[in-house]
Structures are given as C-alpha cells and as structure tokens.
C-alpha cells in the first residue's frame, strides 16, 4: 500500500450517540487506516473545513437521531456551493429504505443499521485499490 486512506469520521447535527462511531474509529485504526474524528455536534460547514484542513480522502457521517436525509442534503449542497468533490458516505440508524435516497442525494455509500464493521472495512479497502 503506497498511501493509507485518510478518513474523517464526523458527527453532524445534535445527535449525541457516539458509541458506534468510536467503535468504527478503533476498528479502522486497527486495520491501518488513518482516522480523524470530529467529536460531537458539528455543523456540516465545520466538518467540511476539518476535511480540507486534514486533507482527508473521504468523510463518514454518523447519524442516529433520524435526521440523516436532511443532513445528507446539507452535505451535498454545501460541497456543491464550495465546488468541492470530496467523497462522503453516511451510516448510523438508517432504515434500509432510506439507503437509495441517500445515494441519490450524492453519497458514495450508505450503511444502514445492522451493517457489520467488516463490511465497512471492506468498502474502504476497495477504495484503496
């Protein structure tokens, strides 16, 4: 591997559930990925600023309060507004039926409730190849 994928894990909105995102951060780090975590309650703008500052390859949004469609749309709009082409994905408490909606908004992937850590790791590995 020439360069490790650098991933920004982010908590947008007011949702305080961070067990999952921290578990994922540990797992990705164990797999050798370069992981940055934003902490709680960040605005989409703060997340994008952090992504630019840390020069990450991809942003992962963790959303468990049910606001995933709204926040994903904000993500898409803000990236467009700034003419940025950073890859991003969403995961958390997301019903299966919302996965196609998130992809349609413009996410590179969406991981609904019950996704295994292994599946997320495989996804990031596939991006490195």
């Amino acid at each position, binding site marked *: 591997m020439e360069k490790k994928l650098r991933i920004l894990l982010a908590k947008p*909105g*007011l*949702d*305080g*559930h*961070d*067990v999952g*995102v*921290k*578990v994922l*951060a*540990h*797992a990705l780090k164990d797999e050798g990925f370069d992981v940055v*975590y*934003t*902490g*709680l*309650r960040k*605005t989409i703008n703060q997340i994008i600023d952090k992504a630019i500052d840390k020069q990450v390859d991809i942003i992962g949004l963790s959303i468990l*309060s*049910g*606001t995933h469609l*709204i*926040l994903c749309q904000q993500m898409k709009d803000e990236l467009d507004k700034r003419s940025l082409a950073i890859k991003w994905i969403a995961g958390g*408490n997301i*019903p*299966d039926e919302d996965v196609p909606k998130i992809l349609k908004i413009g996410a590179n992937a969406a991981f609904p*409730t*019950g996704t*295994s*850590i*292994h599946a997320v790791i495989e996804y990031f590995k596939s991006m490195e190849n």
Partner: protein
Amino acid sequence: MANNELFWESGLKINPLYTAEDLQTSSNLEKPGEYPFTRGIHPLMYRKRPFTIRQYAGFGTPEETHERFMYLIKNGQTGLNVAFDLPTQTGLDSDDPRAIGEVGRVGMAVDTLADFETVFEGIDLDQITVSLTINGSAIVLVAMYFAVAQKFGFDIKNLRGTAQNDILKEFIGRGTWIFPVPASVKLVVDIIEYAAREVPKYSPVSVCGYHIRESGANPIQEMSYAFSIAKAYINETLKRGITIDDFASRLSFNFDIYGNLFEQISKFRAGRRLWAKIIREQYNAQKDESCHLRMIAGGGGGGLTKEQPENNIIRSAYYALISALSGTQTMALCSYDEAYTIPTEKAAEISLRTMQILIYEMGICDTVDPLGGSYFVESMTNEFETAIKQTMEQVEKEGDIIEGISSGRIQEAISKQAYIREKGIQEGDVKKVGLNCFKKEEEVLTVEFHPYNEENYAKQIAKLNKIKAERDNAKVKKCLEQIIEDARADKNIMPAVIEAVKVYATVSEITNAIKDVYGEYEEQVYF
C-alpha cells in the same frame, strides 16, 4: 480444569456449584429495610406497593405528548418519564438553524413555560410522579416544572418527581453537555441545594450508571463510576452548608439491565449494600433513609437487536424479572422496536403489559428478596461489593472522577471496551440470538418507523413567535440580567431561573445568559 473456567462480563469467576461454605459472611442474617439494605430498602418491599412503572415517552409537540401521557395513565402507568427533543436538551429554541429536522423528533419540543402548561394540563402532579430526562439544560426545565406546578396550584413543598440532572455522565455517554465541566457540576448542585431547601420531596438528581454501561462499561464499572459521580455531587453539595441528611435520601439512581441474569441481580444487591456503607461510613449520615439506594432499573437498549425484533419482547420480559428480583423502586423497559425507532403505541403497550403481567400474574410481589440466602447469589453479591469498591478506589487514586472525565481518561477507557465488546459480537464470541447465531437467512424487516411530522415544526415555531410577541419583554430582559448577575456572584442561580421561566423567557435565552458567564464546553476528542 483451567480451560473450563467461566467468567462474567465483569470479570468475576463463576463456579459450577455454590454451597454454604462459600458464604464467609453472615449476610444471610440481613433483613430488608435494615442497614445495609442488601435485601431491599423497605421491610415489605412490593408486598406493600409494587414497583412504579415509568415508561420513557414524549415526541412531537407538547399537545401530542400530552395525549400519549393521558393514554399511558389511563392504561395503568403510575409515573411519567418525559423525553425531550435534542434542541431542548442542548439548550436551543425550535427556531434555531441547528434545530432544523430535530424539533419534536426524539422527544417533545419545549421552548417556554407555555409548553409545560400544555403537557401537564389535567395531570394530578401530586399523584403521578414525573421524571424529566434532562441534563445539560436541566436548570431551565426543572425551573419550568416547579413553576408549572405552582401555577396549577400545587404546593411545591409536597411536589414529588425526579430530574435526571446528571451532567457528568453526559460527558461519557449521551453527549448533551453545554457548559464546561466545573460549571456544569455547579449547576447540578444549584438544583440539589434548591430542592433540599424548597422542594424537599423532589429527587433533584438521578445518577445514571445506565448510559455509562450503554457506552461500553461493564457492570462493575457501571456501578463504580455512578457511585463516584454521586459522591462528587455530594461533596460539592456539602460545601453549600447543608448536611448529608438534608438531601441524601432524595438522591436516586438509574441503572441498566442487559447481559447475564445473575450478574445483574448480584450487581444491584451489592450496590445497595455498598452505597449504604459509603453514606454512613464516609459521610456519617444518621438517618437510615439517607443510606437508601433508590433506583430505576430498566431493560437496556444495549441488549436489544434490530434482527428478529420480536425477540426483544422476550429479552425485555427477562430484564423486567431481573429488575424485580433486584428490588428496584421503579421500572422502565425499552420497547421491542426501540433499537431503531421511537416506539409505536403497540410496542409501548407491550412493555407496559410485560411489567403488569409480572406484578399481577407471576406473584413477583408476594415476598421480599426471594433470592436472599441463595448460596450463589449471596456469594456473588459479596464478590461484587468488593469489586465495585476496588474500582472506585482505583478511580480515586488516579485523580477524582471530575478530573478523569474532564481529561477524557474515563471516556477513552470505556470506548476501548465498547470496541472489544462489539468485536466479540461481530466475531461471534459474545452470543446474540438472531444476530450472530440462529440467524434467519433472508430477514425482511417488517417494522414501522416513527414518522417525523414536518407540520409540528411549523406549529411549534408559530407558538414560540406568538409567546415572544405577547410576553413582557422588559421583564424577560430584567430576569435574564439577574441570572447573569447571580452567576457572576457565584450564587445559586435557581431562583433567578425560576423567575425567568415564569415570564416566558425561552430555553435558549436562559441558556445563553448562563453561557455568557460560564462559557461552553470544548470536547476532548479521542477514541
């Protein structure tokens, strides 16, 4: 044989058989209602009165929440547990841009006292005890509760109920902190002190092991960290010139139930005994009631699965049994769909009936502490007590709990454990039926998701605007200035906050006034 050794999640070793020889102490001579209360805090426990059923509920507008409360009361629920939306929990009004999509979503939206007037209308506040699940903005919401009770003509000297008001655990799990750690603790103590002086039957804090466990802690850490946090609040409260017996009997706890059945029961019996000893031996409490570990112990969401969700009904029934066998005062169960959505009315009803079946059909209330005297349970109660004590001593040795949380040391340790547990589940070492064993090949999820009502958002904002237009803005300004003045003078700001809510100052206006003096918490990010 070494490879046959069996350990609980908390690390305690379990023997295949326990006999009279395992009981070194004379704990079998202990009696319920007598210090150190291992067998229960009352002599007759449920024989006198069954545990209180208090399901967590609240969503949408205060009008909708009011309707759900009336439904729950009609169906035999004896206490209410109010869920607030995230803007309310983090001190924002419904019209804040950061609140978009969140107004009324995970709980009820509250902006001003008018919302409390709607939700509690016609509810007998001296019969139904109300629990407010509020932490970061607790001082505002508790002030609203006292104000609405007075407005409805109840004497707050007799007002019962509970505020969660446990900010230290919010920095570990749940994450609805607002102010820096020391200021946050100061506000918790303001509420405790005010209640001790003016609302003596109210429980001003419910220390939550629950969320610490949900964040990844094992059952020993759940109890140890909760007790260390409770001690931090006690130590600060004592500095206000009130004695331990003035308020210790009003402290309450919220604990989690999932995992091994007997591990949980031993945990609670040991916790009750150790807490009594802490309060008597370390704080020199004279009154027996001061030593009572009063608790709500509920079925934990952490044990439930999205896969085969109906299995959660069975899990919750076992959790209810554990809770009753552990001598809880109050019980709440997560509903079977709560792993992924706000419970449907049907799911909430099944939870309610689960607890009622236990009380009315299973004979759970017939006798006190039915497991008392069991060689196994008594042995493990003893071992658990020692283990909780040792973990507390460890925390205190490394610096106190406030320092441990401020620096992020405790969160880091718990988060590592959450990772280990999750890895165990994903790799199949920790068995979860339907998730990593006995799976259905092609499971189609047939559950209903709680819809989000966009109209409620508009309604709530219209109501807020109307109140802002009709209230006396000069009075609001004066009250907000008083809060700032009292905070600067390091006084208890509760009286000033109560005056502010009475003139319809909003959650956000009051929160911002407090922020002016104390600033905001900056999260220590690590994992």
